[in-house]
């Protein structure tokens, strides 16, 4: 499979991984991205010359060894981590700071423990839709909480919810602010495998409806294949960059069963595992 990245600015299209994309379709563009951490022993280069284009309505999962710089890259896109070199742009506009156009689902649910589930979602909704009336904002928050199956837990304090339920609130909070890009930093990493499966289903169900461009870090090969249009493999650090990209050509909407029974599934899986084991 072709792993080089060919750009053709003149013709308003570009070729990546064997597929021709129109440039106007690019949602998120990482160009020559670099991250350096100064240490007493000199600079530690985490990422160097990292290039990645992510299309509108695309779901991309990123997989790579621990400590390779996946989370660093994601928090740079979120604007929570400074960019040392290169650019990140959303719809052609360079970003510097965090903002609600990029919703984040963190690894730990990061809910305000003194607030109820509804208040946690409203915190973002109030910020993004200041012109809406109070009842409209309430409706938005409640709609997304219903979508993640928490219609009975609006007024429960975050501390009264299980880890899985808290992460559901995290998902509702991220979708409710209607971001352009959704960034997910191993959101299910702390959950048991049953709960993880449930949450993957919930996530993909909402995503099928909203089609928000999503970038998700994961350690789980099956999760990466099940959710993604493309799986991006990162090389091990330091100086990590994109090592390989795998197109997952299953039709959407997918079910777990249809994915597992598909002829290509084990081919994809082998490809990813081969990459990770080298």
């Amino acid at each position, binding site marked *: 499979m072709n792993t080089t990245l060919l750009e053709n600015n003149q013709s308003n299209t570009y070729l990546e991984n064997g597929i021709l994309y129109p440039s106007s379709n690019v949602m998120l563009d990482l160009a020559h991205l670099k991250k350096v951490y100064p240490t007493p022993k000199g600079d530690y280069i985490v990422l160097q010359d990292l290039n990645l284009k992510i299309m509108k309505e695309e779901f991309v999962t990123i997989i790579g060894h621990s400590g390779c710089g996946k989370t660093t890259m994601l928090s740079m896109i979120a604007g929570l981590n400074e960019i040392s070199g290169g650019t990140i742009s959303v719809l052609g506009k360079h970003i510097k700071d965090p903002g*609600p156009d*990029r919703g984040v689902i*963190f690894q730990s649910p*990061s809910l305000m423990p*003194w607030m109820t589930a509804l208040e946690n979602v409203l*915190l973002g909704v109030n910020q*993004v839709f200041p012109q809406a009336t109070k009842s409209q904002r309430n409706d938005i928050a409640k709609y997304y909480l219903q979508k993640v199956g928490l219609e009975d837990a609006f007024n429960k304090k975050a501390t009264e919810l299980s880890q899985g339920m808290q992460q559901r609130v995290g998902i509702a909070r991220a979708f409710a*602010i209607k971001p352009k890009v959704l960034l997910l930093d191993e959101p299910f990493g702390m959950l048991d495998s049953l709960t993880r499966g449930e949450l993957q289903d919930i996530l993909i169900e909402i995503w099928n409806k909203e089609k928000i461009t999503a970038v998700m870090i994961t350690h789980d090969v099956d999760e990466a294949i099940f959710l993604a249009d493309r799986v991006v493999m990162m090389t091990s650090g330091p100086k990590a960059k994109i090592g390989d990209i795998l197109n997952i050509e299953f039709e959407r909407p997918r079910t777990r069963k249809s994915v597992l029974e598909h002829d290509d599934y084990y081919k994809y899986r082998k490809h990813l595992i081969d990459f990770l084991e080298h």
Partner: protein
Amino acid sequence: MKQSITLGSVTRFIGLAGFLETIKNVFTGKLDKEDFKNIFRKVIMPLASVLLFFAVWYLSANKLHEIEADHLINKALVEQGPAEAEKLRACIASGDKSCQPNALPSPVQVWGAYQTLLADHYVISADKKAFKKKTASLNAKRIANGEKPITYTGRPSFVDQIFTSIITVFAGFLLALFIAVPIGIVIGLSHTLRSSVNWLIQIFKPVSPVVWFLLVFMIVKTFTKNSSSDSAFIICFISVGLCSMWATLVNTAMGVSSVDKDYINVAKVLKLGPMQKVFKVILPSSLPLIFTGLRITLSVAWMVLIAIELLAQSPGLGLFVWEEFQNGANDSNSKIIAAMFVIGLIGFMLDRIMLTIQKMVSFNKND
């Protein structure tokens, strides 16, 4: 959250739930092997420690009494001759109050002093009532004429002193709250400010209440020169506030500066404004630490209050203790010890109140 006050909630509040529940189990006959262990740990041992405490107190009071008595008799023997000495010995042995040596009072004497104080309170409050009745019509006339009403100027009773002390400690506590919490929030938010005023906090925090009192006295004296009102109370509560506020200041600054990074990231991603960030994220998440600080502040305030009242000659338990000590009457020592228990109990109740509030604001119910 409406909760009716039940016996259970009261015993939990004062920390006796385990003790009483175990006793209840004994009487209702629900006992197994684990319960016997519990009875030993929660009922027998605490009761034994109480008995031991009073036994040690009683015996040492007796011993000290004996030593003092021997000393007095020997002195009489040397100075006044054997006849007088024998008379004194007989007098002490008879239990006559007028010739008892002044030593550590026994539990029985303290109990007696406590009852004397209560009786005294009833006499004084009856006296006050009578005075009010007598002057009611006169005072009404004086107020109508624009004159000051006549107030009761008699001696305050022990119970009056307790209430004065509680009012003073709350005034001092509120002062500490209104100074320390806002400053703590401001310096907690700014790393620069925090490191620039750190020296001041570190130096003033360990200063003794006595010195705080003197400092406040120096300053307040200037302001109250022309006023006829009693400045002792003002000096007293300001000193208490300044002396006790440091725990709250440090805890608030620490709570505000150490908010979980995840919450700050959420606030950043949602682009909350600075005010919203402070009131919706930073303050709520540091409330538990702020209340821990306030709890320490209140207990420190109560502890230093007694010393400061004594120095400031401001009415209250501290002054009561000091006056009794100066008084040197034969039941003065017993009254001082009685006051000591009252001071301890009130301090304990104040701490329990703060603990309850602290538990209410804590969002982590596992704490």
